[in-house]
């Protein structure tokens, strides 16, 4: 966007229309911060405001999506730094729904006195993180990736340490922030390398430059650095160490939010990068190489996550490792984006994220209930829980089985779609599919652990667990929604998969600018030479 362009103002306005949801989120953030000045110590008002803001953003997203707001349904705004396309819109929709559910969950769980005072802060941070994640889903440019990642991360750090007096939360957030800042620094350094090689921050141009120059070592270093940053957000191995600690320490709502939203946003970001590479890069070898690298990352992550999860005794840590392995599955999907018809994978990823959202939300909600009411997250303490609160136990089993991938529940369909995508990707895909399925086998063991204790084990008579108080209806509603969604996506996946299918499209801007630059560069050959020598 050049100010010299006489059309800049109309262009800006047109672009703003397309990023209206994000704008609304920012405005809502501000409003939530302002609200306490008028009515201090009230929970309802900021919650209402933020919910309203999210709802509006949601409607706007849908509006954009449906082409009601603008004739041009999709587009790339702010000089192509953001891509507003079906994929991102669909993801944003899910994200906002999820954020609303999280807010509901948080509001209902709050019993402490500080709750009311904290509400605006919490909501503001949550909205901020949501905003960042929305940007992540659309980021089409290294700057935007950087901004989006940071604006998603920074509130998350604060969220993770939101229980200020809680030592575990504090420790978790410390780890999170240190780890996050280190990896974002690495990512940025990698980006600088990429920029140095390709001369552009635009993903499509970077891909174009790979076409022209091949995979130079510098580019490899740059990409590895950048993917390291992604890996942090995805909690891929070996950047996963923060994940269980943060998840255990943070309030459960935050954990839920981080496990689903932050990871899936990162998956979207990774998918977009891969999609750009896959669409533009011509060299088959390069594509396979990148796919192999990313696929290996995914495979290692999934396997590692599952294996470590086998030993977890804490429900939240177990779910944390489970989320690591699920991230691994999704990374595998992203990896083969380079090799097959992207629509298949993108829609599979969307479906997976959708299902993953509900099953994790459900599982963590129940974990939160247990944590608050039973005062323990130790799985072996849940012995005989089926008798005491059968519905909760059965629901947890349902969520666990869905996470495992039991047919009839959404998790299986997610894996099936992913598998369908993987298998199309030749040998690499088949190997990844094998890894995925083998992991499914491993994972059964630990997903059944809570079931085992709740259903089979006889409770320890020494330990008297408190009786679970009746839950608030809205909480039941959340659980019911999760369960119904899982059954629905598992048994009648047609509608959902069709929607995912329709939205499994990404806009990839052409590499034309690169070609234009090419002609410009003809005059600056010496520099080019200098640079090549510099390598």
């Amino acid at each position, binding site marked *: 966007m050049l100010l010299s362009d006489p059309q800049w103002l109309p262009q800006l306005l047109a672009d703003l229309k397309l990023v209206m949801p994000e704008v609304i989120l920012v405005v809502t953030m501000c409003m939530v911060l302002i609200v306490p000045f008028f009515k201090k110590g009230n929970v309802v008002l900021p919650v209402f405001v933020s919910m309203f803001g999210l709802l509006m953003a949601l409607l706007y997203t849908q509006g954009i999506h449906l082409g009601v707001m603008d004739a041009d349904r999709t587009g790339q705004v702010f000089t192509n730094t953001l891509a507003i396309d079906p994929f991102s819109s669909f993801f944003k929709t899910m994200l906002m729904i999820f954020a609303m559910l999280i807010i509901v969950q948080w509001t209902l769980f709050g019993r402490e006195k500080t709750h009311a005072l904290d509400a605006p802060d919490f909501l503001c941070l949550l909205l901020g993180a949501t905003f960042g994640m929305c940007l992540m889903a659309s980021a089409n440019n290294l700057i935007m990736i950087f901004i989006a990642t940071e604006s998603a991360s920074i509130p998350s750090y604060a969220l993770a340490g939101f229980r200020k007096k809680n030592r575990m939360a504090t420790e978790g957030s410390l780890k999170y922030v240190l780890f996050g800042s280190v990896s974002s620094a690495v990512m940025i350094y990698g980006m600088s390398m990429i920029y140095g090689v390709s001369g552009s921050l635009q993903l499509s141009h970077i891909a174009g430059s790979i076409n022209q120059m091949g995979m130079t070592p510098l580019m490899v270093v740059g990409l590895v650095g950048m*993917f390291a940053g992604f890996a942090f957000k995805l909690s891929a191995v070996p950047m996963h160490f923060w994940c269980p600690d943060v998840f255990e320490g943070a309030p459960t709502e935050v954990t839920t939010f981080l496990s689903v939203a932050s990871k899936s946003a990162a998956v979207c970001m990774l998918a977009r990068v891969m999609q750009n590479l896959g669409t533009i890069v011509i060299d088959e070898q390069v594509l396979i190489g990148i796919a192999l690298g990313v696929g290996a990352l995914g495979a290692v992550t999934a396997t590692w996550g599952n294996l470590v999860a086998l030993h977890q005794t804490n429900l939240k840590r177990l779910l944390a490792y489970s989320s690591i392995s699920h991230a691994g599955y999704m990374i595998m999907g992203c990896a083969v984006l380079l090799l097959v018809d992207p629509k298949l994978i993108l829609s599979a990823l969307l479906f997976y994220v959708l299902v993953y959202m509900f099953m994790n939300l459900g599982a963590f909600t129940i974990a939160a209930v247990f944590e608050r009411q039973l005062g323990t997250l130790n799985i072996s303490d849940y012995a005989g829980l089926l008798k005491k609160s059968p519905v909760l136990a059965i629901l947890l089993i349902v969520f666990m089985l869905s996470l495992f991938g039991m047919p009839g529940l959404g998790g299986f369909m997610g894996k099936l779609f992913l598998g369908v995508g993987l298998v199309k990707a030749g040998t690499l895909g088949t190997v990844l599919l094998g890894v995925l399925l083998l992991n499914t086998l491993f994972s059964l063991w630990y997903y059944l652990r809570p079931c085992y204790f709740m259903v089979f084990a006889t409770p320890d008579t020494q330990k008297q667990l408190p009786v679970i108080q009746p839950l608030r209806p809205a909480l039941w509603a959340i659980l019911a929604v999760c369960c119904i969604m899982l059954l629905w996506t598992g048994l009648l996946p047609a509608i959902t998969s069709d929607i995912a299918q329709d939205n499994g499209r990404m806009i990839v801007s052409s590499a034309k600018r690169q070609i234009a630059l090419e002609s410009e560069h003809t005059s600056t050959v010496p520099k080019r030479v200098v640079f090549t020598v510099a390598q």
Partner: protein
Amino acid sequence: MHTLITLAQLTAVEADQETVRKLLVWATLLPLVSSIMVLFLGTRYLKKQAGTFACVVMGISFACAILAAFKFTSGNMESFTWKIPWIPIYMGKDGASWLYLGLFCDQLTVALMAMVTGISLLVHIYSVGYMEGDKRYERFFCYLSAFTFSMLGIVTANGLMQLFVFWELVGLTSYLLIGFWFEKKGPQLACKKAFVMNRVGDTGFLIGFGILFVQLGGKVLVPAADGSMFDAIAAELGGKAAIMEHPPMWLTVAGICLFFGAIGKSAQFPLHTWLPDAMEGPTPVSSIVHSATMVAAGVYLTARIFPILTPAAHLFVCIIGLITLVMASMMAMVMTDIKRVLAYSTLSQLGYMILGVGSGAYIFALFHLITHAFFKCCLFQCSGSVINMAHHQQDMRYYGGLAKKMPLTALAYGICTLTISGIGIGSFSIFSGFYSKDGIILGTYNYAHELGGLGSLFFWGPVIVAYITPFYMARSFALTFLGKPRDQHLYDHVKEAPKTMVVPQLILALCAIISVPWLLPWEQMIEVTRETLVNKNVTWIQGIPTHAEHHHIALPLLFGLAGALMLAVGIWMYKDGFGKAEYLLKKVPGLKLLYTWALNKFYFDHLYDVFFVKMTKCFAAICNFIDKWGFDGLVNVAGHWTKGLAWFTGAFDNKVVDGLVNGAANSARAGGQALRTTQPGRIRVYVSLLFVGLVIALMFAMTLVTG
């Protein structure tokens, strides 16, 4: 008009055939009906009348069979088949060949039907007396009738498959009957042993059937309209034989495999050990199942498959027969248990029959089957009477002089002893056993003559046994009925058996006499079946003599007199107990060894126990071990690996980081406070690992790019 008459004649024949078929079917099914009725109504309604009921039904069955036999024989009818499809065997698209159940009727069938039903009737009657007071009285008749049904099923079988079915069913009923007193350990083990050994033979049968099925195709399954499946096989084989010079290997194998079924059922060497043990069952059972009918089924089978046996297979059959014949007769000489003597005698006689079939004198073998059925059944019944009266004391060492107490039983036993010994003068005898055994030996003579060399054993073997048989029979007769009582107490309590037991004995003894060829046309009846048994086209079959020379005078003369001589010797030796025998044992060198061997049944039981039972159990234990530690172990190892990997990764995530932390701390402590600043914490280990991971990823990526 002419046409009408022809039609009438035809229908008459048809109707006649129909009648015979119906009669045979009724004769076969009635015992089953009786069995089922006794099973379900026995304990509640029939109670003590169960025996009478079963006898009546058996009587009707016998009447049917006799009627059918007379109709068939007098009408000079052609053999015919009646079949109902049972198991479909789909061969190709053009529909199913079937495994049929049904009926095949020829001279042999009707003859054996009459014999089986007749003997069964007598045994039923005998059992009414013998089993009186047993707490499972009704159940016994249920089993006995079921057995009769199964046996009739074998006799009427129209194909190998039906034969196999009933083959197994007689095995089952035999199992039940042997194990009738299952409270005791002996019957338990004996019935199991019998069944399993029979199954070994049956396996051979199945394999043989399979080979035939493969080589001859589905056609072997379809019985011809006027013949049994055996004819179809033979015909098919004949077609093939026409283009073959030598009998093919597979045919030999198939024949031997089928014969294995006979080995199992007829308790031939090497599967002979179950029969003596089977004497644990009630004596009526021994008399019908283990002497008269079931064990003879093997001979029947061998005779039926005679057309497809190749010369090599014949030789095999003969060898088996010969070994059994000689071995069993030697064991019969030393046993002191009266039933065991008879059991080994049965074995020996079965050996005769098998040898007869193998050497081509199968007509006499079948004849011997029938005569043997009568006299051996009678012998068993007599022994049963004695045992019953002697309070289940079976050991002959405690008998002696019982002829005075049980004259009728002694009479029957004596007649049968004479019969089995084959007493006769020249070529004439009043005892049927003389003719049948005579025929077999003549057959073996021809066969041995043809083979030459070592083949002469096939002649000398039976001849020697023909001397031994009267000896051991005389021994048992003398020990039981003659001399002085060796157990006075036992002797005092013995009295003549009740009428229900004595009458059947006498009838059977009479049968053993009157079934001589000059009274009843057995031989002729069986002769007719030759037409259906032997196929005309099979060249290598035609070389075998199927018809013994009757006019050889010298041999019968020899046997008839020699039998009488040996009989006398036996009676002389054992009339006064074991004294003379023991003296002989001491004096004659080597006899003692032979005696011990024979007494221990040539150690076959031990051998089998070690080599088969123990080995199988050992195998089973090994398999179980493998299962627990091998296959399951593999699974567990896989599980452990996973767990181990999980432990490793988990440990990496937790312990290694800790280890790094603690290790560094320890070294720091060791190095003193100066190094404290370099002690890493958990977060820094995380971050370090991040960088390590990054470096590894970089290297991996570089390798990917550069090559």
